[in-house]
């Protein structure tokens, strides 16, 4: 038996994809293929392996960029959260980075680092790092004072307190920041492929647009959105499994 909410989800998907199909059949625009055409194109892309090669290409700057931003962002965030002077010095840069349209830096990055992998990794990093660093910093700063005092009173060294108290206490928020960073990283990775040089999925999109193979173009876009959404949702699930119990608050009343 389907539950009400799953039934409605199916219904809702049916409506939306149905509307897509109908709009494609009218057609609303010469550049608007039907849902079924797009899905056929998608299965062809999957079947002949094009999509997998493309993702191998697309995911490389994303993975490298996320790894770099994860390590640097969490590291910097840790220092920001622990040291008020560093906080004063470094946080404003990340605050500005988070509100500013950093995508505008891309032409500059291309001039400085060319059109290769480096530039693309850079794009992912500038998109993903601010939110990771700021979340880590905030979480570390907000570690309840009472459990830090407890650590001190039982003779914890500074590294004990950071490793055994501050980091575990901050980890749910750090993880959430990482997830938001990955979400921003996806935007960066795709932007890089569309703006810098068409490779991977960006290449499929750009190439099929140039030869007016719209079903393939829509299929590629559809696939990247599905991939990002599914991955981010899995991360959110993992987050709930890992830290679910903690949300009920620090053990104080």
């Amino acid at each position, binding site marked *: 038996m389907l539950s009400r909410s799953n039934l409605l989800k199916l219904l809702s998907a049916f409506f939306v994809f149905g509307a897509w199909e109908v709009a494609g059949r009218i057609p609303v625009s010469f550049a608007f293929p039907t849902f079924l055409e797009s899905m056929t194109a998608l299965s062809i892309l999957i079947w002949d392996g094009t999509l997998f090669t493309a993702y191998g290409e697309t995911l490389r700057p994303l993975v490298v960029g996320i790894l770099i931003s994860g390590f640097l962002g969490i590291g910097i965030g840790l220092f920001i959260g622990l040291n008020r002077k560093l906080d004063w010095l470094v946080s404003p840069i990340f605050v500005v980075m988070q509100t500013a349209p950093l995508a505008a830096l891309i032409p500059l990055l291309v001039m400085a680092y060319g059109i290769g992998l480096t530039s693309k990794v850079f794009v992912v990093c500038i998109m993903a790092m601010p939110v990771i660093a700021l979340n880590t910093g905030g979480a570390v700063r907000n570690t309840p004072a009472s*459990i830090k*005092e407890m650590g001190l*009173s*039982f*003779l914890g060294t500074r590294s004990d307190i950071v490793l055994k108290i501050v980091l575990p206490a901050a980890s749910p928020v750090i993880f959430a920041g990482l997830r938001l960073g990955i979400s921003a990283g996806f935007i960066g990775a795709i932007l890089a492929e569309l703006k810098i040089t068409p490779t991977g999925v960006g290449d499929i999109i750009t190439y099929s647009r140039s030869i007016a193979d719209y079903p393939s173009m829509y299929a590629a876009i559809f696939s990247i959105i599905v991939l990002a959404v599914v991955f981010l949702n899995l991360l959110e699930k993992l987050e709930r499994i890992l830290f679910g*119990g903690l949300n009920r608050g620090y*053990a104080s009343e």
Partner: protein
Amino acid sequence: MSETKQISENAVEVRNVFKNYGDVEALRDLTLQFPKGQLTSLLGPSGCGKTTLLKIIAGLIPATSGEVLVNGKPVTGPGPDRAFVFQDFALLPWATVLRNVAFGLELRGVPKPQREEIAVKYIKDVGLSGFEQSYPHELSGGMRQRVGLARALSVDAQVLLMDEPFSAVDEQTRRKFQEDLLSLVQNENKTFLFVTHSIEEAVYVSDQIAILLPRPSRVSEIIRPTGFRNKDKDSIRRDAEYLDIVDKIWASLRTYVE
């Protein structure tokens, strides 16, 4: 009494301590001795600075001026001779009861099998057997407080600083704990500093009761119950001196409530 003798008799000495939080004057010229092997209660209105005093003795926060001696040595920071029971429990929400209780020993570098053996013993002593693998959010307020108590007991410190350790337990458990505390004071040669809001509790368990004034806090009075200390635990509450002291303390505290 000679100077040397006094040092050896007092586990903790607080001398002319002042503490300001910015503009807030929490403690003003507070002087107080805590005799070795005895239990001293701090009794005073909410916000008068009891927690502050305990934390200064623990070495967690510095006094603005004045001196604190523990076993004759000035306090410069936390030490192995003192253990703290926190008013808000200060448990690690991601750690089991067992790890929380053993955490003090963990920070002191005691190997895992040994510290867990010790922890299990104290978990049993505070009546939490069977909850070793539970997490703090699965426990009631009173049970959490007992975890904090077991953690402080397990490091075997000479001086126990207890900030309202029984405030969240129910009345029956509380009475049981008070009796246990009395045996603890008698059997172990430890010094207890005990903050409470309950006059009856203070009189019941204390060798010495220090009454603190509202902020800025000083000691207004020290009361030493003597007559009923060696009596049977059950008859204390009916003892005439016990009842007299309770009335007397209430009489002096009620002026601040009104």
